[in-house]
């Protein structure tokens, strides 16, 4: 009988953190190729369209970057939270909170025009952070599992938002449940003329290295890691696990909130039902693919921006359901999780059967 055995490794070679996500993605695409075949598609054609159409033109590239911006933010949100083993699955709800806060501020007539954008950013980050504090407080005070709470909060904020959009906050000029547009001056400046490349994309690209520095080079980042790996040892060493958890939640929620700010201020100029097609959940996949490294979040987010936008083109061209992109996300999360095992263990084939 041959058995697979896992052996701990002393240290992880640095190139693993690049090779593993690549391997996981290749495995994912290989597995999902089966679905393409099942759908009667041609694998080369389908993947060709999926991966090339989002990068084929300047316009397409910009659109991909615009798509990547919220994904970078939600990816960072998860990368921060999961490091502390604070299982914040509420990125979706925190994003919506950020979006609503931004749209609310952006629509205020009384505010000076120059203050609008900074205030929207601040309010969005704060709204997301405070929303993430709810599960953190419930966890530290009442030992409530944050997974369930943060998930349920996604539903609550969504229904709450819809209640507003259907009621007091409904744009009287629109037939849909949409909020009124934000003020002209509240829109993010466009970085590249005649495209939709807005300030939010730039902010996302700046946020990633900042979060990297925070996690690697500061005592707070150290505390977040220590609490995540072993809360008890961290507590004995003098860190307050409750305070570190709250700080983590606040930071994580702020990132997700900023994703919402970008979508409102840079893209839609209002809040509506479909403002986030699951960016919060995709953020989990992205963060895992990045090995929770904030810098890795950027390429991972671009990858999934490609998958999401490319899937639509692929679906139009080949008739394969667009939901292939959801399957790819789920599969990628699982293959990456398995791949991460190799950072800690090596696989040994072992013949069992002595005597």
């Amino acid at each position, binding site marked *: 009988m041959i058995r697979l055995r*896992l052996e701990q490794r002393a240290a992880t070679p640095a190139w693993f953190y690049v090779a593993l996500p690549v391997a996981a993605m290749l495995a994912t695409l290989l597995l999902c190729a089966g679905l393409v075949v099942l*759908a009667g598609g041609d694998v080369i054609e389908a993947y060709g369209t999926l991966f090339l159409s989002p990068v084929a033109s300047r316009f397409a590239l910009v659109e991909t970057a615009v798509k990547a911006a919220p994904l970078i933010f939600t990816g960072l949100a998860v990368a921060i939270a999961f490091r502390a083993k604070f299982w914040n699955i509420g990125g979706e709800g925190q994003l919506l909170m950020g979006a609503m806060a931004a749209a609310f501020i952006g629509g205020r007539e009384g505010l000076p025009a120059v203050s609008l954008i900074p205030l929207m950013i601040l309010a969005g980050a704060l709204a997301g952070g405070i929303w993430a504090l709810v599960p953190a407080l419930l966890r530290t005070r*009442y030992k409530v599992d944050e997974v369930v*709470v943060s998930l*349920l909060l996604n*539903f609550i904020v969504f229904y709450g938002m819809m209640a507003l959009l259907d009621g007091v906050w409904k744009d009287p000029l629109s037939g849909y449940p949409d909020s009124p547009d934000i003020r002209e001056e509240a829109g993010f400046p466009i970085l590249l003329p005649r495209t939709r490349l807005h300030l939010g994309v730039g902010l996302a690209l700046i946020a990633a290295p900042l979060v990297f520095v925070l996690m690697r080079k500061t005592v707070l980042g150290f505390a977040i890691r220590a609490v995540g790996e072993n809360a008890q040892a961290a507590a004995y060493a003098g860190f307050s696990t409750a305070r570190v958890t709250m700080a983590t939640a606040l930071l994580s929620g702020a990132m997700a909130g900023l994703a919402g700010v970008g979508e409102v201020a840079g893209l839609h100029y209002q809040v509506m039902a479909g403002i986030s097609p699951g960016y919060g959940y995709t953020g989990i*996949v992205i963060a895992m693919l990045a090995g929770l490294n904030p810098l890795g979040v950027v390429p991972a987010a671009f990858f999934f921006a490609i998958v999401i936008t490319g899937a639509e083109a692929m679906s139009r061209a080949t008739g394969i359901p667009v939901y*292939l992109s*959801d399957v790819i996300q789920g599969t990628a999360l699982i293959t990456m999780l*398995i791949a991460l095992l190799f950072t800690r263990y090596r696989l040994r084939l072992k013949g069992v059967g002595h005597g």
Partner: protein
Amino acid sequence: MDDIWGQIFQVGFFAALLRIATPLILASLGEMFAERAGVLNLGIEGIMLLAAMTGFSTAYFTGSLWLGLAAAMATGMVMGALMGLLTVSLGLSQHVSGIGVTLLCTGFAFFFYRLIFGQPGVPPSIEAFATVKVPLLSDIPLIGPVLFDQFALVYIALLAVPVAAFVLFRTPWGLSLRAVGESPRAADSAGVNVALTRYQALILGGAFMGAAGAFLSMAQFNAFTFGVISGRGWVCIALVVFGQWSPWKCAAGALIFAAIDTLQLRLQASNVIDVPYQVFLMLPFVLTIVAMAAVSRNARAPAALLTPFRKEER
């Protein structure tokens, strides 16, 4: 106001309550088995969704509802086994694995539904499960129509509660299961195969979750929609905590939740309170969080929940 409450609390209210509780009872029992063995199965939401889809599709094409139910349960069992592969064999994070399984199942459900049915103007539907009148008993006034004029799956769910309690507390397998969830090392040293037991619990739990999904697309409704689960799986995770990992209390929790849900549905329909209907939709989720906050501090989860068991690790 009096006759509003009269309108709400009719016989129909309690019959509807039982129907709404059924998938919650089934799925929370499934989750309870997994957690009792030490594995948090966050795949529940996705498993229910995928099973609702496979069950519905099977029934649609074979014309047999029971075959559909079997397909849904089989779906749940396969996904339970996948969860086992990730968390038991590979010892990966139960949180992330579960989210992965949910995302995967959601993707599968959407992808295959679209692949099979395309994008028709009118969503395809089936002749859903009809209620089964229990002879004589269903004629009892008040209780009869509530308890004895229900879907077969409602009866099955109600019977499943004592059966689950018996299995968990009175059989050797149930004892092994609980031991594995409390102290895998103790179970192992007593000759219990920890990995196998956890797989069994996850697969059995998956079957329950599958049945719950099937109930939604084949009894409560007669079609599959993308929002057919919409958070019910997550609520079941909360119900298991609220139910202190006991089949009876989980079922009681499911009934309470269902009562609130039924009430909000009726209030929505009655138009007496003038707020957007989404506020009512929100209500059960808010109350679930409040209930969790109330019980969690004193809840005693299975001690080995979330911890993988690697025998030879020193």
